[in-house]
């Protein structure tokens, strides 16, 4: 192992009096009794550095301090600049390094054995000849043929070296002054040095004895200790300075990007992962933002009164099949691989397509870990591991994985004589690999491979007790996918950026009840997306892109007719089961967009854009013009507005020739929004936005029948549905600042639909008039933090059940339903709390968290349940108070 010895790089004036310490004879004979006596290397062949021509012409002088790795044979292994010249651009560094690489040394020895060492070496470029400044230098240059222009100045040995790192994270603390001192009054001696990029520091030729050490990094508790220096021995230490607060915001340095959208909320991962009720899963946080309706599970995204399938979730702009295990239990991407979440509830850019609701764009981290690190997170339901490391100077790699153990717990908990046997209890796992390679500033490659697998299989002893129409005694579900995403960013200059993204993978979904009902879908998918951005000037940016998406699907489906939005049949009619098998069904969608960002008078930002898409499944094209604008009245007030058209395909089953209508066309939405932002403080912003959304060509259930060869054929669906959504969103956000972050989000809205043949509007299934969410996280001393989330939300609409009819064939009652969505569930309110505590160890951090959902155990109504003949009604309650404890070790 190479040892490092450094010459003191910088000395403060108040210790100049001790400068002579550097001049002590470092090659003095060592006492024979010390086995570890170190003899420094001796320069046997020096090479004069050439004085750069331009520097000479401009009469510029400079000093360059190098760090030289000298091998055990005396050759130079490596040379680095540790103190560059003040005069940059003349080539002093290259000249000094070029000369040093040719040096040959008599190797250093330790106990008589040649050892590799690292020394520092100062090369002075001076226009006139000078004498050596230090006697020690003369000693060191005994065999060096110094020129009158360059002056290699020093060679000395350190007998006290150390590393200063941050406690817990092990991040090096660079630029920190380390002071050693002893004595009083006239006997006082003191030296100081500054840590380098690696947190290393060195003192040279300290007199033997006790020395007090003091190091104080900004924002950290000071390190104070005493060390004993022994004669002719070298002392190596490692100090860990504890940060004043391990509030993640302390290191959160994020620029405020130019806002172009009417409504966009950006959440950093660090901010989001400690929000109560989400169990640290940042992707679940979106449900707390304005415009997003509450759902029972976090897997559904209901944005501004649009159906879940109307909103798109993408990762770095690329579509992914699922983001959650079991529909919302956990997200499939670990937090450290995420940079932030950009959420657009409406009027989103022409860069996005195939959605008429909102966009959730999950941005992956541009991986750049300073050192090897990671974490192990153990909770009650799963364990996850994450590791990241730099690979050389230009690359980095991260891997992650997670495995649930719900199956293990349930297998123990479920008795052997249970009526339902867990053949495969619910289990999931996922894995990820994220790599980044930046060979040159202009080129950046990112690779992201991830996949997930969820499985559940049940075996019923007596399926007739569940439903006498069941012809199978087992039920299973399996959802697997993998994706490979490759991103290449080319930035030849400050004006031009090109982002090319390639993605490919496979999705496999199987859900079945034996061979009676099954849904078996196997899809191979690929996507190419390229975006070119040209910043013509400070005021004008042009952006253009193309986007191609394809899929090939094999499907085998046997399913009954099921309820769509706005329908309540009250049950599943197994007599309506239909079988559909398809092989190699291929579809594609190609699109392109143009967008301009035009800043006028430094106040008015106009972002007009237009998007074209072609969808092969409905064989239809769309042209969608969009415009957003922002007007900054002053530093505090901004007005904003937007208008645009948005299209999307019907869902797969709606255009299927067995389950739907292949003649359907695109659904369309027009978004209008107008609002204002008020920022009274740099970290405090109030955002109020009004919106109106007009929906047409909506796919709706049709009772129309056509006759083919005399046989009646159902139309099933048509595009005659319409909708309207209007409302107002308010968000008061305290961005991460000091010890607090949080927001209050309030949405007032109404979402309605009008079905084909109907003259009156009805409420949308997920319409929620009032949605109030207050979220806050506060950092307390001693690495405690506490967070709270309170939600007050209108109950969602529900369709009443008026009674029942006994269906003899099924030995059960069938409900008689009333007017669609003419009733509403009671108001929902809930308080969640989260407490985090960090214990900072030298090399790792242990975090324990307690996430308590529904603190005051509110019995919220999530729906109604009925007795067997629908003559009695009860309440289906939401989750009670649930405390979840987790441990996370980071290193």
């Amino acid at each position: 192992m190479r040892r490092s010895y450094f010459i003191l790089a910088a000395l403060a004036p108040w210790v100049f009096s001790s400068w002579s310490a550097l001049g002590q004879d470092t090659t003095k004979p060592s006492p024979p009794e010390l086995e570890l006596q170190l003899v420094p290397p001796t320069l046997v062949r020096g090479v004069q550095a050439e004085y750069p021509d331009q520097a000479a012409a401009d009469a510029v002088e400079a000093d360059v301090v190098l760090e030289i790795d000298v091998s055990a044979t005396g050759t130079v292994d490596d040379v680095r600049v540790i103190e560059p010249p003040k005069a940059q651009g003349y080539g002093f560094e290259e000249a000094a390094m070029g000369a040093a690489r040719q040096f040959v040394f008599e190797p250093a020895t330790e106990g008589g054995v040649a050892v590799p060492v690292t020394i520092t070496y100062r090369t002075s470029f001076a226009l006139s000849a000078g004498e050596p400044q230090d006697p020690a230098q003369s000693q060191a240059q005994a065999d060096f043929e110094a020129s009158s222009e360059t002056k290699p100045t020093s060679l000395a040995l350190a007998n006290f070296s150390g590393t200063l790192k941050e406690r817990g994270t092990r991040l090096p603390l660079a630029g920190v002054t380390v002071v050693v001192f002893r004595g009083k009054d006239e006997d006082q001696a003191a030296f100081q040095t500054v840590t380098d990029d690696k947190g290393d520091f060195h003192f040279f030729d300290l007199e033997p004895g006790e020395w007090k050490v003091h190091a104080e990094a900004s924002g950290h508790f000071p390190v104070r200790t005493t060390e004993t220096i022994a004669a002719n021995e070298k002392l190596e230490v490692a100090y860990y300075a504890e940060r004043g607060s391990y509030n993640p915001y302390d290191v959160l340095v994020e620029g405020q990007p130019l806002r172009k959208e009417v409504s966009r909320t950006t959440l950093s991962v660090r901010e989001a992962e400690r929000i109560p009720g989400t169990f640290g899963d940042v992707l679940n946080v979106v449900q707390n933002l304005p415009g997003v309706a509450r759902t029972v599970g976090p897997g559904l995204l209901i944005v501004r009164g649009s159906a879940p399938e109307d909103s798109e979730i993408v990762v770095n702009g690329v579509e992914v099949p699922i983001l959650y295990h079991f529909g919302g239990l956990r997200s499939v991407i670990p937090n450290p691989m995420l940079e932030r979440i950009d959420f657009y509830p409406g009027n989103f850019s022409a860069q996005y397509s195939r959605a008429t609701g909102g966009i959730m764009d999950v941005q992956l981290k541009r991986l750049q870990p300073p050192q090897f690190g990671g974490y192990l997170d153990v909770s009650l339901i799963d364990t996850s591991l994450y590791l990241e490391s730099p690979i050389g100077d230009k690359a980095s790699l991260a891997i992650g994985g997670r495995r649930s153990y719900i199956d293990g717990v349930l297998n123990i908990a479920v008795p052997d004589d249970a009526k339902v046997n867990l053949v495969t209890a619910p289990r999931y796992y996922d894995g990820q690999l994220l790599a980044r390679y930046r060979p040159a500033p202009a080129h950046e490659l990112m690779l992201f491979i991830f996949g997930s697998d969820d499985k559940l299989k049940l075996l019923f002893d007596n399926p007739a007790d569940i439903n006498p129409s069941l012809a199978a005694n087992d039920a299973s579900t399996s959802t697997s996918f993998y994706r490979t995403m490759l991103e290449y960013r080319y930035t030849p200059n400050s004006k031009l950026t090109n982002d090319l993204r390639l993605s490919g993978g496979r999705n496999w979904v199987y859900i079945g009840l034996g061979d009676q009902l099954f849904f078996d879908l196997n899809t191979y998918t690929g996507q190419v997306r390229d975006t070119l951005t040209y910043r013509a000037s400070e005021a004008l940016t042009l952006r253009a892109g193309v986007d191609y998406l394809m899929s090939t699907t094999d499907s085998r489906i046997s399913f009954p007719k099921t309820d769509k939005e706005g329908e309540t049949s009250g049950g599943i009619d197994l007599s309506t089961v239909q079988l559909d098998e398809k092989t190699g069904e291929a579809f594609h969608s190609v699109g392109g967009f143009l967008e301009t960002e035009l800043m006028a008078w430094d106040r008015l930002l106009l972002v007009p854009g237009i998007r074209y898409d072609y969808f092969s499944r409905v064989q239809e094209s769309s042209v969608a013009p969009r415009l957003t604008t922002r007007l900054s009245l002053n530093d505090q007030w901004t007005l904003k507005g937007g208008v645009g058209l948005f299209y999307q395909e019907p869902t797969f089953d709606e255009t299927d020739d067995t389950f739907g209508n292949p003649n359907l066309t695109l659904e369309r939405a027009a978004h209008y929004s107008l609002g204002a932002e008020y920022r009274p403080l740099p970290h405090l912003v109030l955002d109020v936005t009004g919106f109106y959304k007009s929906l047409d060509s909506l796919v709706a259930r049709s009772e129309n029948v056509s006759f083919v060869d005399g046989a009646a054929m159902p139309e099933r669906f048509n595009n005659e549905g319409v909708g309207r959504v209007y409302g107002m969103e308010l968000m008061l956000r305290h961005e991460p600042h000091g010890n607090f972050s949080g927001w209050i989000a309030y949405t007032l809205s109404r979402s309605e639909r009008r079905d084909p043949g109907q003259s009156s509007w009805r409420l949308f299934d997920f319409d929620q008039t009032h949605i109030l969410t207050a979220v806050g996280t506060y950092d307390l001393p001693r690495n405690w933090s506490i967070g709270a989330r309170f939600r007050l939300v209108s109950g969602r609409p529900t369709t009443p059940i008026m009674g029942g009819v006994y269906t003899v064939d099924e030995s059960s009652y069938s409900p008689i339903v009333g007017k669609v969505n003419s009733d509403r569930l009671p108001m929902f309110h809930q308080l969640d709390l989260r407490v985090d505590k960090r214990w900072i160890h030298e090399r790792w951090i242990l975090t324990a968290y307690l996430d308590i959902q529904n603190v005051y155990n509110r019995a919220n109504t999530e729906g109604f349940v009925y007795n067997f003949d629908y003559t009695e009604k009860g309440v289906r309650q939401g989750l009670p108070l649930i405390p979840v404890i987790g441990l996370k070790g980071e290193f």
Partner: protein
Amino acid sequence: MKKIQTNRGIFAMVVIVGVLGASCAEEFTPMNELEGLRVLAVQSDPPAIGTAQTAQLAALVHAPEGQTVQYSWSWCPFLGSAQSGYECMIDEAQLKEALQAIDPSAAALVPSFDLGTEPTATFTLNLPTPLLDLLCETVLGQATASLGVTPNCGDTVKSSVVLKISSGQERVTATKSLGLLLEASGASSNPPIGSIKARVKGSDDWFFLGETQSASVEAGGTYVLDVDIAEEASEWFTPPATEADPNPEPIRERLFITWFVTAGSTEAIRTGFIDGKVGFDVLRANNWSIPQINPPSEATLYVVLQDERGGVTWTQRTVKVQE
């Protein structure tokens, strides 16, 4: 192409959960514990009829002691949706008009929808098979298609019998399918049901629950029940050919029993047989717990055996409860 897999997956999962959870109502009195007026079963003998055949209709009704029950029977070619309250989607006049358009002589053959107000009823099918076929493909096909389902008559047109009963303020409506055979091969029979024996749970001493001679059970006791059902009760039949399976193999009927009790509770509301998956032993057996607190002097057990093609048979036993 977007989010299709996810949505369809969620959609499918919702269906599965819906099917599995359809009978979940833990907070309420279980469906098989009888309290008020109930229709427990409706039988058509035979379960499906062809042209010129008559179905004898009967009902198993539970009414609180001493109450008189009024009956109202009707036939319906096609029942409506949950929103319509399962009302008949076409009335007698409309059906006659529709069939008359196809065959002027057909109107006279349309059966009366009103089947009377007696405890039993009969239904006779006079429509010839070709007309029945047309009825399925056009009139009923249109009604089916309007619900978004592709009509598939196969070898049987599925019609319904509706029974409305009332007693005092209580009213109950029950529906049962009645197959109208296009081909004789679709015929089936009601499954036979045999004797019922019981034993105290934990004991090996079986005793029969006689139809006429009451057995005795102890309050607070749990009894293992076993119904004698012959393997032949599950008939072999060939499902209708479909586009996906034009030559289906013969299969055995699924059977299930619904266990109704006037006192106490049973371990399972229903037990079933699925060939190759769930055996007859599961179908035949159940546990009946007799209440310990305020036990009645008598308790009645109704065992309703059904097959998947509309076959229904029942038997009942009344036992004395000893405290």
